[in-house]
């Protein structure tokens, strides 16, 4: 009955697009919204300017004594500056700190290697090389490096050691626990389930107490457990259970057909898991695993309760220094920024990983 001509594409009417329209739609679209916008602006006004005033405008950045801070009224970043070495390296001997810096440099190299190397085997090899190198550098005692006992480790360096070791050790244990929990063998399954549910039911602090007080009792008198080692064992045991649960989620996301196909082509259990199932399960579980890592990074602060001086512990110790009394707030703000930096970086990394792996699955 009718045929129509091609109609031209027009630009949208002026009042329905552009910055002014966006502001109207998103901030002032109704009386309630207008009120909310004003309340929101008011809230920001109450919080942000005073904080900036204290942290930046009135703050003292340069100096070396507390008198320098008394000049302006605001934050005394001199305190942080003065103690920065202790916050970063703990009690590590000054002359040996280059080893830690070297370790950091090697880590950057590792990141580049992981990014640009193609072969998984090479990546794995590099990773292990890095671990060995980092361990030697940090502990010392061989290759002409002086041994630095763990009671001199502290600050951010200790936080990273605890977090990294925790994740690296807990991960394989978690994988085995997850596989065990999904296993057909009843005894293996019960042991794994019991372990996982037990650990997840109790607070980390009780596990740390257990590993620092009770663990030494389990072994003959001759064997001494370094304080840090006890904490690491506790943390690894704890995080392994949570990692196991995340991997279990990944395993459940794998369709049964994958298991059946692997069986059909004659793979043994370990081949099936290692070559077909786990790689897929881990990809699915990655966002959650990074979440566990972020939580672990924050959990490292608990070691200060059992007498180790992680970053937070170090800051608290320094703030109790009789000369620098009263600057705890600066210390806590500093620690907060460090944690934000690490946690945000890990979140962003997780989002990038998700994007990369999303293209492979469905």
């Amino acid at each position, binding site marked *: 009955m009718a045929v129509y001509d091609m109609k031209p594409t027009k630009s949208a009417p002026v009042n329905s697009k552009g910055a002014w329209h966006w502001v109207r739609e*998103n*901030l002032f*679209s109704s009386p309630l*919204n207008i009120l*909310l*916008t004003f309340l*929101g*602006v008011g*809230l*920001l006004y109450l919080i942000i300017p005073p904080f900036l005033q204290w942290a930046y405008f009135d703050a003292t950045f340069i100096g070396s004594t507390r008198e320098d801070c008394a000049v302006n009224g605001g934050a005394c970043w001199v305190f942080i500056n003065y103690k920065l070495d202790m916050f970063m390296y703990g009690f590590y001997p000054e002359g040996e700190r280059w080893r830690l810096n070297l370790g950091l440099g090697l880590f950057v190299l590792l990141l580049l290697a992981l990014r640009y190397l193609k072969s998984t085997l090479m990546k794995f090899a590099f990773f292990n090389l890095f671990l060995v190198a980092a361990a030697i550098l940090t502990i010392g005692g061989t290759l002409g490096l002086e041994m630095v006992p763990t009671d001199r480790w502290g600050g951010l360096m200790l936080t990273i050691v605890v977090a990294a070791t925790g994740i690296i050790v807990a991960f394989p244990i978690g994988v085995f626990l997850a596989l065990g929990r999904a296993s*057909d*063998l*009843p*005894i*293996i399954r019960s*042991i794994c389930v019991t372990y996982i*549910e*037990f650990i*997840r*039911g*109790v*607070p*980390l*602090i*009780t596990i740390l*107490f*257990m590993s620092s*007080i*009770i663990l*030494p*009792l*389990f*072994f*003959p*008198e001759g064997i001494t457990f370094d304080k840090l080692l006890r904490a690491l064992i506790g943390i690894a045991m704890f995080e392994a259970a949570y990692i196991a649960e995340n991997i279990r989620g990944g395993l459940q996301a794998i369709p049964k057909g994958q298991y059946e196909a692997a069986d059909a082509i004659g793979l043994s259990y370990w081949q099936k898991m290692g070559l077909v199932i786990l790689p897929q399960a881990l990809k699915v579980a990655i966002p959650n695993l990074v979440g566990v890592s*972020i939580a672990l990074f*924050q*959990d490292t*602060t*608990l070691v*200060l*309760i059992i007498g180790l001086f992680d970053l*937070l512990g170090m800051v*608290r110790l320094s703030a109790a220094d009789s000369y620098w009394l009263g600057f*705890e*707030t600066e210390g*806590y703000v500093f*620690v*907060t920024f460090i*944690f*934000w930096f690490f*946690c*945000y970086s890990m979140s962003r990394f997780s989002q990038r990983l998700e994007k990369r792996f999303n293209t492979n699955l469905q």
Partner: protein
Amino acid sequence: MLAALRNEKVRGFLFQLLTVVGLVAFLWYIGVNTLHNIEQRGIQTGFGFLEGTAGFGIYESPISFTETDTHARVFLVGLLNTLIVGFTGILLATILGIFIGILRLSNNWLIRKIAAAYIDIFRNIPILLQIFFWYNVVLKSLPGPRHSLEFFDTFFLNNRGLLIPQFSWNSTTLTVLASFVVAAVAIFFLNRWANIRQEKTGEPFTVIWIGIATFILAPIVGFFIGGADFGFSYPELRGFNFSGGKSISPEFLALTFALTIYTATFIAEAVRSGIEAVGKGQKEAAISLSLSPYQTLKLVILPQAIRISIPPIINQYLNLVKNSSLAAAIGYPEIVTVFAGTSLNQVGQAIEIIAITMLVYLTISLSVSAILNWFNHKMKIKER
């Protein structure tokens, strides 16, 4: 024989056998060493210590406690304090979390961003750091008792804590409590009646406003019936400190604030993901059926959102209770601080004490898990 070894079932059996043997051997090894070490250090075994005298005081306890009380009573006080801080934290965190979660979904861009910023900020600060911040920075910098911040001359805030009037358990208090219960029951039955009536005649009956009014009026009526006097004991400044009234310690305040603010971020995210998980199509279908926005929320969106949000929210409650153990860092006398802390130092029987403490948390966790599983099971029936 070798053929048997290749048999799947045989291998499985052998593997398990080896594991069990290995485990038993390991436990044996540990057991022997432990007994030896304990003897060496002169530590007792068994649970007799529970009847021993504690020899230390606990300044904040819902029940009476003196130095001559037993360790068993220490355990009880610690447990009660854990439950009190857990309960308060859960209540406040839920309210704050739901509030922030709703703000997160607002169609006002600024409010949405502020809520998101709150969540991002407080989720990434370790809970222990937050506790220290409240305790060492905020509460310690409050003025001393003589210069307390006061509100209406009845509430006082200083570096020794928060002082509020303390009611006595007299007829007024009991009547007001009773009237809350009566109001709740009445509203429950009113709701039932309204539902039945609507099914029969189709006439809807809005219970909510009557419900709110009842909850406000009933206690007021009860107040007057009961004698109109709570028997308040007011905190009064006598010399250097206050007497009378109820004192809430800075440790409790710091712990509760930190736990509330931290846990609320996770609850807010759970609320948001619950509501967002209800697909856009559901709302469109409701619109197409001419349901009002209120009806859409009540009948379509919320029932589905709640089902999705409840398991993670309950998980967060568990986390809050577990995180309350960090009170050990600031000395709030909950179970880890006093029992696995002070009592353990006194008695030395680490294994028994830590085991009991873990058992408490395990019991709480497993009970909550059981409830969650029952909840999930009920939901599964409806959804294939």
